[in-house]
């Protein structure tokens, strides 16, 4: 069976594929500018065309994040965001029917309790976890907890991954596979990476799961370029940037989020060409 067919996330990718386009995956950290403001922004992303949502769990030591996401996560933490707020955000966004995953560094999950986190995420309607600092070979507890509930397990593959590790990783994934397109941290870039295409091809050779490409996409033109070879285009920093740039005017921030989403959605549908 196609593992991708078994979850709501997989179905969102399949729907996009059936429409002849890539899926648009949008990320924001929970709690920024505050919990309700973050929920409003994520809902705007859903309304304007995101197929899958990633809710970031702000963490004090985010080694994979570039300055933009670090800045927002730090502000969320300073605002007092808690793990429970992340789950509340998931619940509010998942209620739209759009698959909603949590992207989190590992320690907050371990601290919350792996079983308890999995259950509370499931109860909130969350689709699963994306784990940037947890690889399948060090994830037996999470894999067991996710398998018991049918939650998505999205692990990352990188340009530096060996074919053997890509196979090991995709075998452990459910929902989709997250391909990090460049060697580096998150953050909008002016051009997308030429490392991404070959990585997607190597990943596809091991799995029927959809492959999403992340790190660096900030506009429709780049989204279209990535969509030409990937099943999903993952956008994070660009959304965060929009909120940071409109910190003093929430209505303007939401409008800008909607506009960016629409541009990216057009891009993944092939409607924007460089």
């Amino acid at each position, binding site marked *: 069976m196609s593992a991708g067919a078994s979850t709501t996330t997989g179905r969102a990718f399949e729907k996009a594929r059936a429409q002849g386009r890539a899926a648009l995956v949008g990320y924001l950290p929970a709690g920024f500018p505050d919990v309700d403001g973050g929920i409003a922004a994520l809902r705007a992303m859903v309304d304007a065309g995101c197929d899958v949502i990633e809710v970031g769990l702000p*963490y*004090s*030591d*985010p*080694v*994979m994040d*570039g*300055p933009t996401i*670090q800045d927002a996560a*730090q502000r969320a*933490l300073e605002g007092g965001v*808690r*793990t429970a707020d992340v789950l509340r955000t998931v619940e509010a966004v998942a209620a739209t029917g759009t698959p909603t995953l949590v992207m989190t560094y*590992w*320690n*907050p*999950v*371990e*601290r*919350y309790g792996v079983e308890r986190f999995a259950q509370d995420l499931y109860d909130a309607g969350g689709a699963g976890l994306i784990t*940037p*600092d*947890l*690889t399948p*070979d*060090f994830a*037996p507890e999470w894999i067991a907890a996710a398998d018991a509930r049918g939650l998505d397990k999205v*692990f*990352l*593959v*990188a*340009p*530096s*991954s*060996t074919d053997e*590790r890509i196979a090991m*990783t995709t075998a452990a994934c459910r929902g989709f596979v997250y391909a*990090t397109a*460049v*060697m*580096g*941290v998150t953050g909008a870039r002016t051009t997308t990476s030429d490392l991404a295409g070959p990585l997607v091809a190597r990943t596809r050779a091991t799995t029927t799961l959809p492959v999403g490409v992340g790190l660096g996409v900030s506009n429709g033109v780049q989204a279209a370029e990535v969509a030409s070879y990937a099943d999903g285009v993952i956008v994070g920093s660009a959304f965060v940037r929009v909120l940071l740039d409109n910190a003093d005017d929430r209505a303007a921030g939401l409008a800008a989020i909607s506009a960016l989403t629409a541009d990216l959605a057009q891009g993944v549908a092939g409607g924007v060409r460089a």
Partner: protein
Amino acid sequence: MSAYDADEFGWFGGPGAFGGRFMPEALIAALDELDAAWQKAMVDPTFVHQFEQLLQNYAGVPSMLYDAHRLSEHAGARILLKREDLNHTGAHKIRNVLGQALLTKRMGKTRVIAETGAGQHGVASATAAAYLGLDCTVYMGEVDTERQALNVARMQLLGAEVIPVRSGSRTLKDAINEALRDWVATVDHTAYLFGTAAGPHPFPSLVLSFVRGIGDEARRQCLDQTGRLPDAIAACVGGGSNAIGLFAGFLDDPEVAIYGFEPGGDGVETGRHAATIFAGSIGVLHGARTYVLQDEDGQTIESHSISAGLDYPGVGPQHAHLSAAGRASYRPVTDAQAMDAMALLARTEGIIPAIESAHAVAGALDVAKERPGETILVNLSGRGDKDMDTALAYFGLGKAGPADPPAGEGVEG
């Protein structure tokens, strides 16, 4: 191979216990490459010989084991000091960086990056890079660059680029985050010289292999000089590299008691401390499962210590294992106790220790009360020149005039 060593996945104390490798996939290939190169180097007589020669002819190793008579009189026990403060650059850290930099050359990489708190590891890294002709970038929390401007200048004089880190709490942990971010992007030509026996596998074991000379030498020297093993050994523990280096020489001598002294800051009860094992809880930080200072949600709590070199909210996973297994005891030593010990050692022996190392001396004085007349071997991991600003402010020194004993107690003798 000791029963206290890590398995091939980096677990101390069995799968899932302590250590491991909680890292982005983007860095796994680099860690595997490093692991393979290190394993190969350690069984290559040429590499081992090169490393030993460098230690002897450049770093001034083996450091002496010094019988501290006047301090011993004061303590009521025989105190032996392993004089790592006499090494080139003034601390045990030169051993680690020479090992890692030599390995970098062997791997054909041209650039090293390092994180630093107080600046000692940064200075040591810049030194090794200068000596071996490698480019060097050091990440240092902005707060620390201000606290330790002299060390910033040292690194710059040695040809390193020092990048102030402005994210998070702008201290050591954030410098590690930033160095990891650099490494993800530059791993094809860059090696990360990790400053302590912590982080993802293989770093805890790799760093141990380069610093374990401290304990191996001390054990031999103690046997030569006293005819027997010490009753107890002591070291300060921040990340824990000097301590693990000392402890490794004695782990399989069950009759030797092992003490690690953690930075107790203003006192563990105040919450302003860095006593990770004594007062922290098990979590994952910087790639390893270990004891961590964290809140209910697993967010890292900022640590506090008068000693910047111990001011770290995590600890090497092997220490976590040694504590859990009951092989070593970890106790807090407050800022005030450490500063008293610094003054005491200066006045009794004419040795100004690093404040880090003063924690070990202070702890050993307490152990001496429980073990009167016994022999306690203390790792004097570094010298105190770098800490004179702190001492000046703490003791109110620097104005010439009639001699007053420094504030605090315990300086008679």
